[in-house]
């Protein structure tokens, strides 16, 4: 015992940073030696160069198709020729020459495309490999001008802000309802959020598989989800600590509503993203039907936000406005991003953020649905969860973009 304690003390006498610096230095030296010697004993890599390109962005202008390509493979790639619908075309590459690893290049094709037609584009590299890209439906890409941003803002407001605000109008009803009803409302909210989480996850995996992989695919979804979950959990514990005294007097309802609003807001960011990118590629039928669908869909989200406010102090109009904006306005931002950046990596990450936020909110709400016996899953709560998910499923059918 004594010897061990002495040994520990002896170690403690040396500067602690030295203990970390020695292994760090050895690691650096080993890596440097390996790099300088070129991996001794491994020899040259066998086989032809590995050529991978991801098309990150497609812009269609009259008589012109512009592709932003990124080298997602280990070797440089030279695009030597390009064919569209099996016809070679003239093109400009900027910057010219080969594309280095992780570098991007803009390739502008001189081609008289027709609106509404699909196109198969084939990039022929210097080694004769082909990298194919498909345009599902050719539609002129909207210019990012004031009118376009105005339209996206209007769209975001229609599908995000207004429906959420409408849903929040249930507050007076919720406040008069007995406590047991409120628990059921919250259970329904959980069902509804769980649906959104699954929906976001599926969409994110689909999108993640589309991306080239240089910056990760589906793992970006998990990265975004983990990040959002931890950030919200941190925010929640911060709010709890700060208002520890107020919690006792029923302010926990407000905190919960705030968390739900933030979570739904992050989800609506992803929803706006989908709408914006669908609009950009011409796949979105703008119209009353879509807006009505979203109104129904997102109204339930407004209800979810006000459910925790049933008990306790009556919230001020300003606070309600804050909740509404937090939950709804990110749809506007999402629409901007979605319509102007068609980058699957960014979209996957943002969808992950939405998923993580929702999962965190579910964890937050869970204790609030416990009945007097302390059970979370009782007939009324289970039924409410199912109804919550079902409502979103059916309203979601109206708005598949």
């Amino acid at each position, binding site marked *: 015992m004594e010897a061990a304690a002495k040994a520990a003390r002896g170690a403690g006498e040396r500067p602690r940073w030295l203990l970390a610096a020695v292994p760090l230095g050895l690691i650096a030296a080993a890596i440097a030696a390996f790099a300088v010697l070129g991996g001794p004993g491994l020899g040259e890599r066998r086989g032809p160069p590995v050529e991978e390109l991801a098309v990150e962005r497609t812009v269609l202008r009259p008589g012109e198709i512009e592709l932003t390509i990124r080298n997602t493979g280990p070797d440089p790639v030279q695009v030597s020729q390009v064919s569209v619908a099996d*016809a*070679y075309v*003239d093109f400009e590459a900027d910057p010219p020459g080969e594309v280095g690893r992780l570098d991007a290049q803009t390739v502008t094709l001189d081609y008289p495309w027709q609106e509404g*037609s699909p196109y198969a584009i084939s990039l022929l590299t210097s080694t004769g490999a082909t990298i194919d890209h*498909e345009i599902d439906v050719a539609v002129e890409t909207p210019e990012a001008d004031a009118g376009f941003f105005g339209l996206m803002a209007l769209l975001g407001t229609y599908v995000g802000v207004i429906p959420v605000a409408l849903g929040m109008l249930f507050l007076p009803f919720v406040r008069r309802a007995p406590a047991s009803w409120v628990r059921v409302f919250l259970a329904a909210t959980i069902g509804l959020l769980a649906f959104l989480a699954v929906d976001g996850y599926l969409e994110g995996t689909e999108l993640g598989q589309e991306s080239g992989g240089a910056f990760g695919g589906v793992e970006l979804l998990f990265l975004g989800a983990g990040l959002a979950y931890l950030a919200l959990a941190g925010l929640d514990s911060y709010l709890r600590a700060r208002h520890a005294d107020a919690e006792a007097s029923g302010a926990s309802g407000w905190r919960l509503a705030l968390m739900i609003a933030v979570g739904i807001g992050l989800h609506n960011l992803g929803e706006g993203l989908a709408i914006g990118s669908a609009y950009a590629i011409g796949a979105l039928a703008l119209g009353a039907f879509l807006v009505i669908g979203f109104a129904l869909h997102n109204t339930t989200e407004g209800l979810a936000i006000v459910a925790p406010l049933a008990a306790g102090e009556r919230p001020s109009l300003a606070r309600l406005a804050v909740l509404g904006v937090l939950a709804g306005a990110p749809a506007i931002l999402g629409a901007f991003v979605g319509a102007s950046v068609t980058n699957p990596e960014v979209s996957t990450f943002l969808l992950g953020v939405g998923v993580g936020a929702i999962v965190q909110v579910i964890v937050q709400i869970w204790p609030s649905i416990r009945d007097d016996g302390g059970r979370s899953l009782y007939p009324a709560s289970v039924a409410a969860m199912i109804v919550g998910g079902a409502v979103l499923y059916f309203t979601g059918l109206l708005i598949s973009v």
Partner: protein
Amino acid sequence: MDERATTGDKPASRNGGPERKRGFSRRGLLAGGAATGAAALPALHGLVPHEGVHSALEGDASAAPAHGGAGKAAHGGGSNGPTFRHGATVDHAANGFDPTEMLRDYDWGKTRRLPTGRVVREWELVATDREIEVAPGVHYPAWTYNGRVPGPTLRAREGDRMRVRFVNGSEHPHTIHFHGIHPAEMDGVPGIGAGLLETGEETTYEFVAEPFGLHLYHCHAGPLAEHIARGLYGAFIVDPKRGRPEADELMMMMNGFNTNFDAEGNQVYAVNTVGFHYANEPIQVGRDDPIRIYLLNLLEFDPINSFHIHANFFHYFPTGTSLKPTDFTDTVMLGQAQRGVLEMCFPHPGHFMFHAHKTEFTELGWMGFFEVGGASDRRRAPSAFCELPYQGHG
């Protein structure tokens, strides 16, 4: 021999309609392909390959300013038709062959006459592996005879004795299989005669050149499709004993390159290997000159190929085994290894497009131009086949 030549007069179902068998579903083509094909043809006619005739087409180019930049009209692009990237060129010197020179490059072999009167011709063909540029900036790891694709155009006269020494300098086993009439052991297929030649081995194929006509040779090692697709083929012309009327003779090997090796169609289509070569460098011919084209199809992975000439018609001699034409037309369709002799004259000066009337191939490189000079300085004696009706020269 003469009898055989006569029976060749009536070739059975030349084209056989293979195009109806199956559509081209290469690379999961989308519906847009059909629309594009339809839109492309009128556009092709607006394509002008030479600086000298820009002004004639300027109206055309400015009529559609939205599609294809003005000033680019001269060499295709946008609605003016398919093109490789402007400014990019193939390095013929590095390739070691030039499609323009290939047109009129006939190898009669080392010739000597035996006391019996028989002519003996000797060639040496060496198989090598080499990278060739089949489109500007696009390199293909080819297998070649004598370093070129197609291999040398071997030419003999009917009845000549042919000795082809074949040395396999490639890393892969190869043969040479000639189309023609010869003993079994000279057929150049694995397991018969010399069979497959491994790296460094050699053999001599020896036979009599018959029947007269336009033939070909190619490697017959397996996998056969790959050995052909890689470039191991060439034209083999047997002239009739009395020869054919003098003409400006052009050898055109329709071929293609499946550069991504997916065995589903080709990425580059061409005549004599380099895509769009004769669009960038039109074939120079004289007005009213008798012109004879030895046309062969060695395209792999696609069931058919075709040849179409603009603003002109030609007399067609399937496989060249008869001296009487069977058709007077402007389009022929050929399956793999089908070939024929085309004879024509250009009565008008100017640029005349020729291309596969399989428009997909056209837009992937199989398109070129004849440039017919105003006054021909090498005009030959007026030939019967510039006249109509034409009865042949048998």
